[in-house]
């Protein structure tokens, strides 16, 4: 693993941050306990809504295990050599399928151009036979020989009883994820660790599975090894494009958590119980979204949704205006729940121009009118109990300003309650208004996240100064916290801010989190 590349010129300190113990002592009689999982601010009162996952570790464990079994391949120079040889030979011929028109894709781009090469992060998906399935930039056709090379590389190393995990060359990192029958390749110029890149590839893998199910994927490729999967994925590329965009920008994907629409708990409880009452035999999950924020989630007793599956649903709904046309009814596989089969989702907005989108997930594909009926019952109950108005009011301020916390040097933060799988974060302040600045800040958080979750040397806390901002990250068994301060702040200040912030979150928790999730 490469730790060095991660850390640019910024001065930083690590190791135990002294105040941890001091905080713990204070917490005993402070209103902000929370070093114990389940008592941190934002922890649900009864049961969690999500599958209980050791979040990040859970996600990458699989890939790591695979890698651990085999010798680490540390011969990057040799590999690059190999790559050159293979390019010359062009081992795998391209085979076009005329029925696929890629003209409609707006990402037409000359793959030999400098612009194409200079993208920060490329992602490729191919079949084990080396057939192109997806590329983030450019078209798959134009890249089929490149993909062939990648595949040859993968199988060459596999034949030697090794598995390629990554190749580092020329400021560029190439990461491989083999998930039979698919092979995913990430090529990155960012300073993300291999582990982070693998995590992103996993998401892309799950995105594809959610459209087809793993059973169907396996079946197809057992049947016909060199099947062109783009036939079946036609028209879904933008879902993957959007997911990649979210991976760069959405803290929820980084934290393995979901954020909520700030809403008075009394109003949220009415919404939840109205959804709870609108149940049906085959209904498994009822999810109400406001844009990218969860309003509430009601689930069948004993059935849990995994945050990855929920993010896939968010991505599906958020990427498509198609559900605005009427009531949508679509098969969807929730791969963390079950890779073998489809659920059927009734997806509709509460009003044509509303942000509020209701998703009712059923096990029965003939359930459309039952779900439509559930929605009607939900709406009736909601307006009868006049919660709809409160909800619409809340939509007007879906975010909050960091100024509310009352710590002048604090610019931004991410706080995740581990037991509820929910996080909260204020809107970006003025200094991070541009897209580039926001992505840069997300990049910094990603770095911190990598350090806290380092596979061999994980840190409990981490303070880092740079010319543009000071950052503090802290993980306990109850929460994960990332803070961004103005560069004028000091470490002592940062440390005292943590306490103040935790108190504030505790005070606001019933508005910012879902404390009493319901089941039916």
């Amino acid at each position, binding site marked *: 693993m490469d730790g060095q590349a991660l850390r640019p010129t910024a001065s930083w300190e690590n190791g135990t941050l002294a105040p941890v113990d001091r905080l713990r002592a204070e917490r005993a009689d402070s209103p902000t306990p929370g070093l114990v999982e389940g008592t941190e601010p934002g922890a649900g009162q009864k049961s969690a809504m999500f599958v209980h996952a050791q979040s990040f570790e859970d996600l990458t464990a699989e890939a790591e295990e695979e890698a651990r079994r085999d010798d680490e391949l540390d011969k990057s120079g040799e590999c690059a050599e190999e790559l050159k040889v293979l390019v010359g030979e062009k081992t795998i011929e391209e085979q076009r399928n005329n029925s696929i028109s890629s003209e409609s894709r707006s990402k037409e781009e000359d793959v030999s151009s400098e612009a194409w090469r200079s993208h920060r992060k490329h992602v490729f998906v191919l079949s084990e036979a080396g057939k192109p399935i997806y590329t983030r930039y450019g078209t798959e056709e134009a890249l089929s020989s490149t993909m062939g090379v990648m595949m040859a590389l993968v199988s060459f190393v596999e034949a030697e009883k090794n598995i390629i995990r990554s190749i580092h060359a020329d400021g560029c990192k190439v990461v491989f994820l083999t998930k039979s029958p698919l092979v995913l390749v990430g090529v990155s110029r960012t300073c993300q660790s291999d582990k982070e890149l693998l995590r992103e590839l996993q998401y892309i893998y799950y995105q594809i599975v959610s459209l*087809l199910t793993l059973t169907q994927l396996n079946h197809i490729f057992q049947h016909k090894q060199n099947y062109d999967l783009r036939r079946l994925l036609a028209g879904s590329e933008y879902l993957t494009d959007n997911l990649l965009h979210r991976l760069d920008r959405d803290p929820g994907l980084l934290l393995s958590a979901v954020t909520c629409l700030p809403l008075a708990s009394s109003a949220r409880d009415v919404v939840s119980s109205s959804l709870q009452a609108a149940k049906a035999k085959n209904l498994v999950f009822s999810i109400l979204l406001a844009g990218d924020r969860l309003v509430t989630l009601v689930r069948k007793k004993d059935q849990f949704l995994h945050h990855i599956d929920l993010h896939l649903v968010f991505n599906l709904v958020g990427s498509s205006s198609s559900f605005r046309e*009427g009531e949508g009814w679509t098969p969807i596989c929730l791969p963390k729940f079950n890779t073998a089969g489809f659920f059927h989702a009734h997806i509709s907005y509460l009003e044509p121009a509303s942000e509020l989108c209701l998703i009712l997930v059923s096990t029965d594909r003939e359930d459309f009118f*039952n779900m439509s009926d559930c929605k009607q019952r939900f709406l009736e109950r909601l307006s009868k109990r006049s919660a709809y108005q409160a909800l619409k009011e809340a939509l007007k301020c879906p975010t909050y300003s960091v100024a509310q916390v009352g710590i002048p040097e604090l610019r931004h933060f991410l706080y995740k309650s581990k037991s509820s799988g929910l996080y909260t974060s204020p809107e970006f302040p003025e200094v991070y208004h541009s897209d580039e600045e926001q992505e840069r800040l997300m990049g910094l958080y990603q770095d911190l996240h990598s350090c806290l979750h380092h596979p061999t040397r994980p840190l409990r806390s981490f303070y880092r100064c740079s010319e543009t901002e000071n950052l503090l990250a802290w993980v306990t068994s109850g929460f994960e916290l990332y803070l961004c301060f103005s560069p004028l702040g000091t470490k002592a200040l940062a440390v005292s801010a943590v306490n103040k912030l935790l108190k504030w979150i505790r005070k606001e928790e019933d508005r910012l989190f879902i404390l009493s999730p319901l089941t039916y």
Partner: protein
Amino acid sequence: MSAMRVDAKVVMLGKESVGKTSLVERYVHHRFLVGPYQNTIGAAFVAKPIQVGEKVITLGIWDTAGSERYEAMSRIYYRGARAAIVCYDLTDSSSFQRARFWVKELQNCEEHCKIYLCGTKNDLIEGDRSLRQIDYHDAQDFAEEIGAQHFETSSKTGNNVDELFQKVAEDYNNTAFQYMTAEETGIDLGQKKDSYFYSCCHNN
């Protein structure tokens, strides 16, 4: 709008991007959305009341996704349909092949479903005749052969769109008038016991 009544199930079928969603948008919302094409995911349902003579008939329109990915699912969308609008793009001959596929499928599985063959994007042809890939008469011959109505429409200009759906509703009204007995037609979606699919199978 609590309980919604649907009299006739209508399904839109055809290759991806032939313009099924645009057709429904034009008919239901009287608009044509420009901007990047958004393929339908799964299917979308919308109920639309339409005046036929003295009566109001509510069409329950299923706008299906053209992507092959959903082909296995298509049965649930066309089962029990009284009308199928099978679309092809006048400027894309491969879409006509796909239309033939859907016609065959309907003939095999849904014999009571009336077929409406619809050539879309007529406005493109008006602009440039050389774009036409499906001859009007060839399509007309095919329609006659299968006993279907034939339309050429444009969702962009609205040309022939209302006429198409009006015809669907009138045909439904006529056959309903012929075949329906004492049983009042229509399915109350707010009703719990009587599931929609059950009623459909009954009607056929």
